[in-house]
């Protein structure tokens, strides 16, 4: 069965510090991996995706993510956090028609 795990429900980071939001996955076949962000009372917005090629992918708002096949991970990163990055972040995987989402990580950037 396909599954996605986000081991941290909550991540706090000081403004200006680097941030990491963790994601691991378990799928059969080659995965397509995604990160989405959700602001309060809004739908999800696409941040970035890994399809193939370079393991480091860059996305919107200065975010990037590193695909690690051996560790089956796809961690989201940003070199310098902003207060406006505070939101709920979801990792997702797809191998065909259906997406599987993690339970979400709430990121709080402290001024």
């Amino acid at each position, binding site marked *: 069965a396909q599954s996605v795990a986000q081991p941290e429900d909550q991540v706090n980071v000081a403004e200006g510090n680097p941030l990491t939001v963790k994601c691991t996955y378990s799928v059969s076949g080659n995965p397509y991996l995604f990160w*989405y962000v959700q602001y309060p009372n809004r739908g999800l917005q696409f941040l970035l995706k890994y399809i193939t090629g370079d393991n480091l992918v860059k996305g919107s708002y200065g975010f990037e993510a590193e695909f690690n096949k051996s560790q089956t991970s796809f961690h989201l990163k940003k070199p310098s956090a902003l207060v406006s990055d505070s939101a709920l972040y979801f990792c997702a995987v*797809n191998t065909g028609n259906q997406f599987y989402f993690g339970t*979400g990580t709430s990121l709080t950037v402290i001024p």
Partner: protein
Amino acid sequence: DVKVTQSSRYLVKRTGEKVFLECVQDMDHENMFWYRQDPGLGLRLIYFSYDVKMKEKGDIPEGYSVSREKKERFSLILESASTNQTSMYLCASTPFPGQGNYEQYFGPGTRLTVT
């Protein structure tokens, strides 16, 4: 830009009522999805559709049905609303069936409260 719209942002219904949630996308996407989002559970797939009049059950279809009479519109129906269906409902679309490399485009969500 792709736009996915949902008919209501907030909805309050009584137990036993029939509830319709409407979703419309304007980019001619083949695939459409309905999820519910609950704290600590993430997004759970209720139903999806890869073509007009086609539907597939997701992980939690019980208590729900769907309708897709036109390509751009995907409706979620709660035949007899219950309090455990109080949740945030999200609609999404992607362009091509069977190609998982395309990201989903989400609507703003409908926060449904059943009293």
